[in-house]
């Protein structure tokens, strides 16, 4: 099974939807920036991006956490709230930060245009495509990977949980900044690994 799986990650289907309310000013690139005073209950989100295509962006939206339990068996039952937020990754590589209000978020789609043709990859409300922002924390959200090989209607897109993989690099970046917020593993589903880091294992 493990050896035999063929990469099927991306191309979860094509969604045509109107362009949503973009708040790209929230995205600050390649630096850690504290939210402004007006942004109460915000956290800093850190996304690592490995993009092999141009003009990649993602739409994220806050999840009504009361709907999460019923969405386990019925993904359509997931309720999203608030305005969709566009994260524009154009021209970025490595760590990207985004300041967001606390909460659980769903990445609802990733836009990977093919030249001037729009192409949107839906994430089908899967909990794999979620992240959590804790207020007053620097939250590691995940790795967004977009493959180099593509067709006009197909490309490999993945959202990966790489907390331990990026931890040393992330801690170095945090230590080099003046921000003293604690680090959190902003994974969008149950993952107890970060608890192990808080308690020495021997």
């Amino acid at each position, binding site marked *: *099974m*493990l*050896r*035999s*799986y*063929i*990469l*099927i*990650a991306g191309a979860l289907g094509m969604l045509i939807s109107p362009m949503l309310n973009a708040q790209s000013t929230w995205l600050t690139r390649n630096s850690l920036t504290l939210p402004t005073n007006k942004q109460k209950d915000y956290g800093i989100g850190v996304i690592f991006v490995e993009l092999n295509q141009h003009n990649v962006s993602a739409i994220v939206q806050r999840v009504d956490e009361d709907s999460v339990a019923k969405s*386990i068996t019925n993904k359509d039952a997931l309720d999203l709230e608030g305005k969709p937020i566009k994260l524009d990754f154009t021209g970025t590589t490595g760590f990207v930060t985004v300041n967001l209000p606390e909460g659980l978020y769903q990445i609802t789609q990733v836009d990977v245009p093919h030249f001037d043709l729009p192409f949107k990859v839906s994430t*089908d409300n899967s*909990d*794999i*495509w979620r992240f959590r922002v804790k207020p007053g924390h620097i939250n590691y959200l995940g790795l967004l990977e977009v*493959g180099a*090989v*593509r*067709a006009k209607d*197909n490309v*490999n897109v*993945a*959202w*990966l*949980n*790489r*907390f*331990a*993989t990026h*931890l040393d690099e992330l801690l170095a970046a945090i230590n080099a900044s003046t921000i003293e917020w604690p680090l959190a593993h902003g994974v969008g*589903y*149950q*993952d*107890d*690994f970060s608890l*192990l*880091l808080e308690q*020495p*294992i*021997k």
Partner: protein
Amino acid sequence: MKIIILGMILASVASNVNANKLLDPLFADPSTQSVRLSPDGERYVVAEMRPEKTTMRVYQSASQTVNKQYDLARLFDENTVLRDMQWLDNRHIATMLLDKVQTKTALAESNAQLKLIIFDIESSDADPVMYQVSTPGYLVDGAPDEQGAFYFSRSAHKSKIYRIEISKLLRVDQKRTKLTRVDGGQFVESNVIANADGYALRWFFQKSGQPAAVLLRTEIDKVSLAVYKSASNEPAAVPEEVTSWKLSELNKKEKSKQDEPFFIPIAMASETGKFYSVDVNEPQAFSLYLVDFKQQQNELVFTSPGQPIVDLIFAKNRKAVGVMVVEQGLYKESYFDGQPSLLNTEILQVVTASSLDGKTQIVYQESHNQPGRYVLHQDKKAPVKLFNQYTRLPDSLPSRQVVGTVKVDEFDIPYILTLPQSASKSAPVPLIVMPHGGPFDVYDSSYFSADAQFFAANNFALLRVNFRGSGGYGLQHKEAGKKQWGDKMLLDILSATQLVQQRADIRSSQTCLVGMSYGGYAALMLGIQHPKIFTCAASVAGVTDINLFIKSPYLSPEQQEWITEHVGDSNSDYAKLKSISPVYNINRLSIPLLLIHGAKDQVVNVENGFRIKRLLEQAKIPFEWRLYPEAGHDFSEDDQLVRLYTDILTFVQQHVSN
């Protein structure tokens, strides 16, 4: 640094170890070869594919001498890769070529346009004649009983098969002028031999060469089987739909309907209108049916007693006479009429090609210490070996093999033990236990194994266990592995280890675990749980956090569903899966550990490796770590396998010598 360590190891174990024996012949040769026999059996063509070039050689069967040689890199360019080849008649070989870049991923290959080039092997060496088909489509088959022609499908919303004459095609090097037409102007209605209303996926032919049926996609969600009128020679004849399937139902069968058969045709029978079919509602293909879709009748032809059918065996008249199954981990031919099998449990022997008269055959053979070889059988002549699959290995290798079972919970768990020839009571050898990856459906066979021969050549015994969940031993054996990743599967491996450790020719105090993928998981968990039984553990691309593995974005929804059923649900079974994950048990590790992971692994996220690494560093527990920045899950690029097996051998040699 590595040289110094290796030197120390060599010095310490020089008395009984020949470092890295067989490493290059087994793991450094990236070439692959395939062979096809001409219809009259008088010639065969061997393609040798290497990263830098592909060469096709045409041999005379009688003398096994090279008649023609084609270097595809020289004829085309260095990026040309051979995808497949087929004799169209005794003079023409069709080759399907594509660009090397398009072989890199399944996604790219599925979008790649294969180039159809036809070689005329009777043309002169100085001026080799090659024809090219420029029109998009695919080769269906050579025209039966006709020299110099073949059938070619253009699949679109309306699909057609054209009869194409080879000599009318343009030559590869021929310049187009105002007087030449694409493909000799042959893609015209007068050459159409069959029509179908939809995108043709597969055509079925009568022995006479007349199209009999077509499997085609007629709508986005619909695949139809349409049958031509048996007596119709009219190319314009439209096949009549006899049945159809909704793809959405095929991909995700409704639970309530799973008891009803859901037949899919896989080959046309000699009887008009009937198709050999399998029932996709069976968890695997255990039964073969003859189905008349029009009359909605089916007849059970053969039921394999617990072993899935992997292929059909046809007689010359297109009548299926048997099936190929996997039994006790070995390929076996089972005939409907009770003919004795060509196979036994010692040697794998499969007829891979046969001339039309059946007098000339190419047979593939291998056994546990005999690397795969192709043998030419000609009427009344002694068989002749054509070539070995491993070009740099001798015909046989000095090792011994013991196949046995161990009883665990009323299950007979098969194991395969490979020993160096020299292993004896007076000279016992260290043991490596190597659980296979997968773990479901995958199994270790007792035929040739590169792993077994490598470790045996380096003076280790290698134990492989087909624990519960493994394929090749029937449905019950496989299903018994459900949700047993960290329980019964490990118990099976442990029990086989303890049994083998009792042998006098095994140095039981020196037993190391080596595993890849699921095997890497098993190596870690068994090493953590049983430090008195295992001396060291090497985990390659291993799952260390099962919940993390289940949350892989690389899995399709169907694969996620399958994993939930067979491994566990990361929502409802989170605590259980956590308890059997190495990451949450690593505090108990007390034996030397080697961790290896490819940074580009898209099956087991490299995060699995980094999690263990982080925890061991935090706890200041010594271990060895190798990150292969360019490697994926199978370490198949460049020299990765050579480096991988060097790392593993160095590690186990160091720790068994201590």
